[in-house]
């Protein structure tokens, strides 16, 4: 089972799936959505590129079915293949004709209806496969349903306990289905009252006592499919044609195929387009829109959107090109050769914007913005709340041409991941608006990220801390770092360091700098992040740290074991016990003091760490004669 969790996906395929199309790692078509066990289950066809074995190249090609499920219409779980053409006893193993399916639940069993090419004869037959769970495994019957020759099966469960099956392929037909769900128990009826023109893909349902028959329909000579519907007071018609649910695809994708489902009080239309295969409309992808009924039971026409349905968490990757509305913005495939890389939106200059509705910010804590952009000239853009003049959440300055930098001379036209701090963090669910504040800029995606917590400030009256299970001391009093002019750590010779440490030690009593008492969230104390938060600069910093070790009795014959990035010196109760010289990286137990005694009561451990470039940090513990970490003391916060 493969879980599609948008928040953790990275790279090109990692769209938050609230946007259309909803399934991005494979083609999906002819979606039948059903609600089972309070989840939406999606049973689409699975388009593939025709393999060499398929006789008709360039045609539809479907060899198996997957099922997907979701509780929020945003995160979809792919439960994998539930039926393959090779496992259908009566079907051809090389038919590639596993077209639009349906699945219904009756008395705890799940009945999966599917068309396939029969081993004997021409055209399509419709079979049924049965499972105990909506995710399968589905066991196909030995023979197809007698009398149902065609495609696009759909089953309606009536509230009187009867059930009906509808199918296409020639005139649209329906019949009563026996209670075993596997054979007809009434005559095959041609659906009356439907308009002229090609029709297929029936999807029937009942709402407020009225029967609906919905279907793809070509309304004009030479046209492509719309989604249309008719209503009736009886399940097999005759029908009263009502009109269009969705107009033809703007890009002339010939097919559309759909289902309607009510989930948690909202009706949704599932349909497909060929977004990921713009030059081949036989490779399709499922989309979702909200759908509403008028008071008289008629259906309001649905306009396809890129935004689709569902709320995005701000920490998901939001494909901003799937926007809700825009001004002077243009979408385009990032790579026309590879549509599956998705699209981007270009804001064409000052005054242009895109709006993306429905982003939930309640998941943000200490967050920043990451955004994928490409620009030809230096420019900037703002992410705002609600409107193009709304409060600025973050401002992103995009520098693609800079004067200096060995590796980054000219980045114009390249896709870049940029970050920006947040000036304002919205509360709850709101809409995002990206506004261009300069030259044209293309945006692919954005995502808010919570920063990891590195430190927790320790209250004055906090109880003493313990070393962690590996003996690392995590509670420290740390002084605001002192800026030092060190561009490279290669200067850290013993003589240089001794002089520097002695110098700083002498100055220490007179320093007015602020001290913070912090618990490190990690075994290693990330001085770089401390400097970032509490200091003026991260690189070229000199850190003073102290901690008070309280021992219940003397602990003899222990060694102080340290690692630091970069060089460091360590004092216990005022005595120098260790120095790590040179261009150090932090390594657990990199250096150790000679044998020491931690005396009963309070012991002051002090360190100075100096670092030029690099991610400064340190780890420290005491090790006993057996090489085991010492944990039998507490760490005070004063």
């Amino acid at each position: 089972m493969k879980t599609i969790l948008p928040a953790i996906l990275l790279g090109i395929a990692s769209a938050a799936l609230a946007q259309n199309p909803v399934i991005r790692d494979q083609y999906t078509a002819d979606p039948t959505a059903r609600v089972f066990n309070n989840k939406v289950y999606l049973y689409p066809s699975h388009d593939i590129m025709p393999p060499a074995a398929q006789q008709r190249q360039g045609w539809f090609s479907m060899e198996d079915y997957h099922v997907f499920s979701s509780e929020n219409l945003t995160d979809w779980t792919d439960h994998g293949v539930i039926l393959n053409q090779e496992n259908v006893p009566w079907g051809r193993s090389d038919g590639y004709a596993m077209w639009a399916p349906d699945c219904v639940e009756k008395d705890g069993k799940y009945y999966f209806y599917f068309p396939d090419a029969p081993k004997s004869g021409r055209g399509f037959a419709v079979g049924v496969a049965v499972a105990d769970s909506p995710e399968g495994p589905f066991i196909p019957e030995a023979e197809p349903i007698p009398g149902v020759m065609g495609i696009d099966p759909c089953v309606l469960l009536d509230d009187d306990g009867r059930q009906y099956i509808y199918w296409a392929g020639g005139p649209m037909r329906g019949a009563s289905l026996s209670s075993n769900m596997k054979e007809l128990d009434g005559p095959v009826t041609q659906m009356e009252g439907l308009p002229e023109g090609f029709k297929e893909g029936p999807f029937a349902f009942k709402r407020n006592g009225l029967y609906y028959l919905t279907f793809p329909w070509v309304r004009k000579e030479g046209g492509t499919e719309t989604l249309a519907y008719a209503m009736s007071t009886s399940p097999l018609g005759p029908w009263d044609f009502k009109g269009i649910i969705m107009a033809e695809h703007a890009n002339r994708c010939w097919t559309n195929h759909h289902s309607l489902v009510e989930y948690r009080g909202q009706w949704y239309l599932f349909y497909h387009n060929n977004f990921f295969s713009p030059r081949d409309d036989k490779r399709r992808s499922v989309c979702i829109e909200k759908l509403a009924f008028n008071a008289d039971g008629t259906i309001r026409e649905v306009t396809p959107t890129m935004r689709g349905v569902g709320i995005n968490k701000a920490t998901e990757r939001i494909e901003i090109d799937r926007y809700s509305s825009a001004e002077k913005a243009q979408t385009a495939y990032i790579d026309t050769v590879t549509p599956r890389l998705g699209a981007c939106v270009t804001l064409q200059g000052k005054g242009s914007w895109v709006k993306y509705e429905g982003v939930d910010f309640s998941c943000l804590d200490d967050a920043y913005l990451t955004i994928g952009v490409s620009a030809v000239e230096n420019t900037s853009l703002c992410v705002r709340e609600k409107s193009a003049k709304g409060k600025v959440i973050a401002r992103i300055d995009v520098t693609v041409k800079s004067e200096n930098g060995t590796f980054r001379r000219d980045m114009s036209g390249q896709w870049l991941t940029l970050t920006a701090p947040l000036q304002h963090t919205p509360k709850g669910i709101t809409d995002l608006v990206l506004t261009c504040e300069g030259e044209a800029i293309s945006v692919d995606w954005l995502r808010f990220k919570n920063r990891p917590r590195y430190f927790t400030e320790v209250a004055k009256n906090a109880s003493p801390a313990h070393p962690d299970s590996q003996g690392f001391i995590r509670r420290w009093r740390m002084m605001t770092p002192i800026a030092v002019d060190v561009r490279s750590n290669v200067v850290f010779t013993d003589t240089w360091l001794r002089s520097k440490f002695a110098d700083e030690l002498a100055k220490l009593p007179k320093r007015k700098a602020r001290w913070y008492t912090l618990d490190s969230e990690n075994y290693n104390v990330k001085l770089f992040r401390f400097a970032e938060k509490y200091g003026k600069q991260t690189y070229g910093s000199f850190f003073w740290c102290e901690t008070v070790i309280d021992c219940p009795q003397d602990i003899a014959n222990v060694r102080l074991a340290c690692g630091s990035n970069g060089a460091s010196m360590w004092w216990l109760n005022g005595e120098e016990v260790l120095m790590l010289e040179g261009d150090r990286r932090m390594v657990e137990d990199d250096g150790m003091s000679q044998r020491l005694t931690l005396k009963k009561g309070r012991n002051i451990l002090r360190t100075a760490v100096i670092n030029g470039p690099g991610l400064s940090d340190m780890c420290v513990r005491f090790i006993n004669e057996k090489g085991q970490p010492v944990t039998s003391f507490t760490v005070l916060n004063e």
Partner: protein
Amino acid sequence: MKRLLTILSIITCQLSIVNSQTGAPYIHDPSTIAECDGRYYTFGTGSGGLISEDGWSWHSGAERPGGGAAPDVMKIGDRYLCIYGATGGGLGGGHNGRILTMWNKTLDPKSPDFRWTKAVEVASSDGMEDQDAIDPSLLLDPATGRLWCSYGTYFGTIRLIELDPKTGERVRGDVEKDIAIDCEATDLIYRNGWYYLLGTHGTCCDGVNSTYNIVVGRSRSVEGPYIDNVGRDMFHGGGRMVIAAGDRKTGPGHFGRTVINEGVEVMSCHFEADFDMSGRSVLGIRPLLWKNDWPVAAEAFRGGTFEIESERRGYSLELAVDFVRMEQERQRFWQIDPNEPVKPLPNQTLEEVIDKWPEGNIPVRCSDYMFRPWQRWTVTPVPEAGGYLSAPYFRIVIEGTERALSATADLEVTTVPQFTGSPEQLWRIEQLTDGTFRIMPKSIPGREGTNTRYVLSSIADSTPTLAEYDFGSDNSKWNLRNH
């Protein structure tokens, strides 16, 4: 005079062999050696790379677009996958790095098929994380067929991601995992049920003062934890040394492993500064040994004077000539006067025995090693004869003579009175993963092309021959001992 010339030529050879690799092997962060149409390729930081026809002499000419730092290249199926970091790891910019992959049907820039596909991003760092997405490496896991990538640098963590070996793209839903800290130019390898993470520690890019060195940790799972020889996790900075400075070269970095045959492995790296090449950064290729399932870089083999000892029986390769007894004034042990001072006995000299040797070809055999002149072989590189992956060809002569070991057309070995440089007298000498050597003639008389099949072998305890290389058999293995 001829003797002097020989000595001079030996000195010259010895000087050239000091080089890590010959030609113009200037590179930083070489990718794992890739083979394409009989040539070797390695790609470095920047845009270019090196090409070698024989694995010993290298020149520039490989092409890789995209710039940035530290690529890796691997053949998967009939295509080459290149992965590289598009950025510079904090040099002249922040730490928002990008890792990209691209394919090519060939690595030969002159081929009509030479065309890199459009690069696809597979990982990135956003500049705010404790991570910098540069320095990627690839492992196609032979146990599972899955494709892994480690990347990162001194700024934060080393990460593991999974790629799709069919597309080179990130596997959908794959979540990156932190497996180490503070390394640069990592590489993942798999051997014998172990996954190894190799990382470069120390100071980069400081020439003769660079302390760069390559360390390793291992794990039973590709996802780690990667533990070093004292039980320390590489996520806590652990690592066991694989190769450090030495041999007048500082700063080995950016490990790559190449398996030539079973039991014949080399590691590639760069040295920050080669003291014999103006302190330039050069490509290094060293035998890779395995000790208790730990990788160890061996010294480059340079020749010398050795006993060639069979691993099979411990007998010594020698000329099939009369055993010449040495005279010794015997004392029975109970007659020894402890007060009489001891004196050294001289070795038997070449002059004492050489007159008794036949003029023409002398066959070879194996026998008890007695450090006699007919058992002492001088091995010297022959730079003009080309080489193989790691080293030049060598000639093998009886010490102090020109009598050279030679392959024969009927897959036997003999000695010829005079080394002529013909290919059956040139020997490829490679240290195997267990520390022994295989010794292979460059060609077999009467057979086309370069020999890569037949090696000096013990068919019996006393009988050397040429036989197909078999790492599973001690018959294929020899020790070169100077004692």
